[in-house]
């Protein structure tokens, strides 16, 4: 395939540890920045990105240009704006941002500079997961390179625009990925989410207007600026535009990550790119976009991977990294593993999440241990409603309920078998 079809990964080659600045520049790197900063007004950059139809790759899928446009105009010189990169990737089953960070750090940096220019931020922070040591190393190095080339620092490319980027490495908590909790974490506080409104674009980091964007989102930006809106729009196969990193993990032949057009059918991703199920395993279901998405079933393989189509099929595209459930893994135990994760990662701020998730875990453990009762399934179903969207302070708990509610729907028999005592014991490998 033409590298124009794989803008995000064109510099990521199997035999290359990572793209150096020279590698990056050799394929047109930093041209998008030059275009934006020397030819366009910030407003125009926002318009381009909005028109391109880039939607946030952090999971929620909000139009990126639109989000940038919500930042109020700077009225005085003592007003500050901030850009924050959400590189806290911690959703189980998600491994796309680490790939981009480690293998092509300059792509992200260029995206940051353009985005910062678009929202008139003079300081940006990369909020990086603490466990991503290699990414930290490569980013630090790349930032230094960018500084020496005047892509970064005072008077970027001799324009009036200045930008400093700081790398912040986190100390680990899934909730730090939630954008308002992330801001609290960045301020050195406990990472509990903030009430919305006000949204970060109005009052974010230290109260200033702040845009939080996902790593992959920002990686798209340089290419939109370099090749234009029309080109970008031509990349999608479904309703959404551009390409996306899609991944598959679990018992498939070749688990991995591929840059594919938005709207690629799930079947193609699992069967062609991931090589289908390993021998001796059948596909029972899958989580299409990370741990906090609803299970889908093999009958839904032909659904196209774009935000609205997957939503219509009863789940969410989320991070676009698929977790496969095979027929030898017990869905109840898999859900227990997920809920243990969410219960542990709850920030402890709001009641339903803080106390509802541990109860969910207790019930699932009871069921698996053979102490379950039929009415426990109603209790679980009740909890999925109780912890649903809008009921909790942030979206962690509703996310946690998605795999559970769909498992109760699709794999109810597996739950019941434990309860009536006829369970065929299935243990993970």
């Amino acid at each position, binding site marked *: 395939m033409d590298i124009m079809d794989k803008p995000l990964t064109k510099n990521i080659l199997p035999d290359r540890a990572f793209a150096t600045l020279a590698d990056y520049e050799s394929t047109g790197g930093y041209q998008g920045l030059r275009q934006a900063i020397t030819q366009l007004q910030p407003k125009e950059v926002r318009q381009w990105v909005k028109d391109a139809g880039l939607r946030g790759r952090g999971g929620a899928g909000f139009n990126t240009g639109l989000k940038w446009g919500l930042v109020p105009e700077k009225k005085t010189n003592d007003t500050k704006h901030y850009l924050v990169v959400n590189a806290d990737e*911690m959703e189980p*089953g998600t491994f796309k941002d680490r790939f981009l960070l480690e293998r092509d750090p300059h792509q992200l940096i260029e995206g940051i500079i353009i985005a910062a220019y678009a929202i008139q931020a003079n300081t940006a922070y990369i909020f990086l997961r603490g466990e991503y*040591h290699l990414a930290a190393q490569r980013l630090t190095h790349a930032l230094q390179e960018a500084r020496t080339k005047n892509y970064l620092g005072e008077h970027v490319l001799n324009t009036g625009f200045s930008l400093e980027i700081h790398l912040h490495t*986190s100390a680990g908590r899934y909730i730090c990925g939630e954008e308002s909790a992330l801001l609290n974490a960045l*301020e050195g506080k406990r*990472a509990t989410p903030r009430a919305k409104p006000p949204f970060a674009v109005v009052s974010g980091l230290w109260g200033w207007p702040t845009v939080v964007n996902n790593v992959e989102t920002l990686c798209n930006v340089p290419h939109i600026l370099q090749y234009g809106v029309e080109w970008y729009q031509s990349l999608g196969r479904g309703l959404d535009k551009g390409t996306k990193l899609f991944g598959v993990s679990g018992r498939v032949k070749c688990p991995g990550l591929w840059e594919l057009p938005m709207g690629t059918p799930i079947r193609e991703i699992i069967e062609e790119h991931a090589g289908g199920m390993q021998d001796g395993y059948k596909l029972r279901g899958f989580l299409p976009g990370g741990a906090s998405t609803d299970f889908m079933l093999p009958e839904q393989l032909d659904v196209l991977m774009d935000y609205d189509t997957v939503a219509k099929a009863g789940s969410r595209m989320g991070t676009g990294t698929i*977790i496969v459930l095979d027929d030898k893994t017990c869905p109840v135990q898999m859900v227990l593993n997920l809920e243990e994760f969410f219960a542990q990662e709850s920030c402890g701020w709001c009641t339903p999440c803080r106390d509802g998730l541990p109860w969910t875990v207790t019930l699932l453990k009871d069921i698996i241990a053979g102490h379950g009762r039929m009415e426990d399934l109603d209790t679980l179903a009740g909890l999925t409603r109780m912890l649903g969207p809008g009921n909790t302070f942030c979206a962690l708990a509703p996310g946690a309920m998605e795999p559970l509610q769909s498992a109760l729907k699709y794999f109810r028999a597996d739950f019941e078998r434990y309860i009536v005592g006829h369970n065929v014991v299935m243990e993970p490998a």
Partner: protein
Amino acid sequence: MDELIEKSGFEGLSPTEIQEITAEMGHYEDKTAASIEALKIVQKHRRWVSDPCLVAVSELLGISTAQLEGVATFYNLIYRQPVGKTVIHYCNSVTCWMMGAERVREQLCRHLNVKLGEMSADGEYTVLPIVCLGACDHAPVALVGDQLKLDLTDNAVNEILKR
């Protein structure tokens, strides 16, 4: 710098630590923001954050000890108890769990003769679970110190502990 050492009121923080923390403070509008990095800096030098260190850091940052403790106890990667020279974080999230994380844990604990969170007798290792390390296509995985170890097979112990 001398003045800062005096200000921290705790001779226990080394000049290097103070320097590194002070540098971090410069990255933010507000000193509090360096809390997490400060704790990590202390940890880089001493593996864990003892009570006196916590007090010293809070003084350096000009925040209350209680506030810093609130932060320190919130995050997964801040250790408020001693850990081994190398911390082995094995991933126990969904894909790794499916692909054999339990086996990895069991082998490590048996080999090092520790429970989760304990330090091995020689002070070399501590084994802890961690959430998804973002390498699910190579499950099961573990983070050994700052090295990511992929595709841990039945021979996890060898792969992890070999130098």
